[in-house]
């Protein structure tokens, strides 16, 4: 007999609930921080963060800014996919930030200096990230170097490397690289008419559909293919995988190649859409890779979930720019998202807690049913 499972027992539902709980708690902490900074405007500020583009009066504007938020979501989806893919194989790809930089570096260099078309820039960017990922994987597989530490080292190396490579592409009037519209039109990503859907927002490009396709592909690879099964087995128990004849070292390197390629693809696509330019004096790795970690965990380590969590994080980050800047600062959104990841660390705890409560409730129910049955038996005996 198949027992009917309660909805609360469903793993997916539990993940969803814990993510929502994390978001709500994160928001409350953010609100408290705003209250401490300046109580009078705190409510307005948190509403501005949550509303983002909904706070614009005209519908056309709202649509345009919705497009911009989507354009910023796309690279985040790639970064979160990169993190979650590696995590499924037991590797914590904190190097996503550096791989993202390398994607940008190669793509912009080939676009502005060598004047190549967008698809070659994109492929070169992906290759750069994949190579960096491979290095990280090789260090782990053959030299037993902690992935987190080598990832961080590669982040800084990549940052300075990117600055060095893009220095010749700098617009002398500022510290940023040239805008592609002015210097490298051939490298602009095609929009396929998507821009017209969003009130002619030229930053809405094929990057957005590509991100969603990538999420679906990663989901298929992980859940529906032999490769995905092998990779996950390697992550769960390296020795068991080895014993079953899987090539564990190859799997680790391959995972990091894919993860690196994904993060770099995000970076290349974003900068080839010309939305932002690279600051060649950048002294910190862009936060995108780190936010990818947030998005991956908030999305319950599910590729499809990461689409929504990426959107949410971008939404509040962009919304952070809308707070009353004379009293608050935009980083309040970063603050909220880092609180959310901190809380995501407790997911396991939340789940065990929930299951324990359910177990107890069930035990009570069974005990009560048994007591009722016994009472009935007694009555039956008496009659």
């Amino acid at each position: 007999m198949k027992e009917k499972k309660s909805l609360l027992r469903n793993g997916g539902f539990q993940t969803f609930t814990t993510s929502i709980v994390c978001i709500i708690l994160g928001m409350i902490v953010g609100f408290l921080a705003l209250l401490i900074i300046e109580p009078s405007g705190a409510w307005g500020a948190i509403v501005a963060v949550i509303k983002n583009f909904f706070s614009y009066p005209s519908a056309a504007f709202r649509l345009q800014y919705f497009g911009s938020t989507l354009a910023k979501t796309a690279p985040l989806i790639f970064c979160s996919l990169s993190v979650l893919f590696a995590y499924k194989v037991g590797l914590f790809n904190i190097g996503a930030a550096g791989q993202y930089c390398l994607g940008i570096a190669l793509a912009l260099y080939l676009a502005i200096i060598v004047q190549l078309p967008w698809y070659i820039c994109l492929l070169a960017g992906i290759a750069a990230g994949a190579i960096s990922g491979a290095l990280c994987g090789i260090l782990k597989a053959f030299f037993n170097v902690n992935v987190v530490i080598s990832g961080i080292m590669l982040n800084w190396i990549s940052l300075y490397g990117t600055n060095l490579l893009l220095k010749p592409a700098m617009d002398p009037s500022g510290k940023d690289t040239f805008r592609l519209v002015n210097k490298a039109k051939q490298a602009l990503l095609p929009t396929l008419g998507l821009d017209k859907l969003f009130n002619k927002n030229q930053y809405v490009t094929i990057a957005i559909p590509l991100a969603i396709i990538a999420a679906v592909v990663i989901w298929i690879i992980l859940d529906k293919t032999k490769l995905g099964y092998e990779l996950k087995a390697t992550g769960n128990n390296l020795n068991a995988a080895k014993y079953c004849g899987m090539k564990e070292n190859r799997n680790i390197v391959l995972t990091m190649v894919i993860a690196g390629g994904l993060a770099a693809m995000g970076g290349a696509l974003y900068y080839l859409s010309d939305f932002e330019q690279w600051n060649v004096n950048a002294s910190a790795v862009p936060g995108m890779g780190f936010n990818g970690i947030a998005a991956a965990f908030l999305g319950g380590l599910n590729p499809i979930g990461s689409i929504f969590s990426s959107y949410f994080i971008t939404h509040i980050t962009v919304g952070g720019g809308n707070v009353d800047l004379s009293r608050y600062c935009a980083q309040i959104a970063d603050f909220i998202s880092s609180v959310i990841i901190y809380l995501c660390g407790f997911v396991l705890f939340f789940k065990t807690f929930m299951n324990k409560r359910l177990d107890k409730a069930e035990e009570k129910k069974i005990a009560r049913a048994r007591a009722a049955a016994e009472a009935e038996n007694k009555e039956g005996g008496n009659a």
Partner: protein
Amino acid sequence: MLLLVQYTLVFASVLLLVALGGCISEHSGVINLALEGIMVIGALGGALVMKFLPYTHGESSQFLMFICVLGAAVLFGVIYSTLLAFACINLKADQTIVGTALNMLGTALATVVVKSMNTAISPDDHSSEIKYIDAKKAFLTNVGDFELNWFMIVAVIMLVVAFVLLYKTKFGLRLRACGEHPQAAASVGISVFKMRWAGVLLSGLLGGLGGITYITVGVSTWKFENGVAGFGFLSLAVMIFGAWHPFKIAGAALLFGLFRALGNVYNGFDFLKALNIPSAVYNMLPYIVSLIVLAFTSKKSRAPKAEGIPYDKGMR
């Protein structure tokens, strides 16, 4: 040349302090990836004191300033590390995720605090910088041409204290037992939770000290948006290279400190200047060196056996 020695020693002090923190925490069984964030928060504590405590030249004022800055950095570091301890020890959370979250939170929190403070003082000021030009002089003493940073002495003291604590006391033996085989430790009546809490709080103390030392090297303003540029992680590399032993860590810290210092002072050497290598390469140097060193030293790692695994009473 003297300048190179000076910078090497002071960067080595930073790395040594933070790596000792990581070392103690790992010996208790918790991987402290949040050192980067702890450094930022410790630096924030110290910088706030330097900004608001009035300072006049003179020995007593100098000493008071030093003690207060030190105290604030330690206090902030320890308080911040409770977030890690609570999550990783009591709630058995994944130490990598929590550590990463705390690193991001450290920078975000410090930026929010400093920016809102600056904006509150003057509404047009949206920077995330704290200036401490005068106050910094409190703990710098010139010995001839050599500028002695008092934190170098603190680092040396801490090195000795850490060694004695870990290898010459009952507490240290118990702490290390919890990192090697917590179930065995528990079976002879040691409270694993308490020992791990002690390990993490001590690493918060040392991380905070490292943070305040880092922001007094060569600069007198700090932009908190930038965090501490991966120094927390460099320290972990130093710790691994130093095979989790205080004195070996000290040696590793000197080596890494040297490479980091080259980036600051390479202009002072004619032959290095003549090579005309872009500054970005010097900036990369410590990270590249650490990667290479890690590749050669990680294979036969002497990490505490139970590090990174939450303690579960039921597993014996």
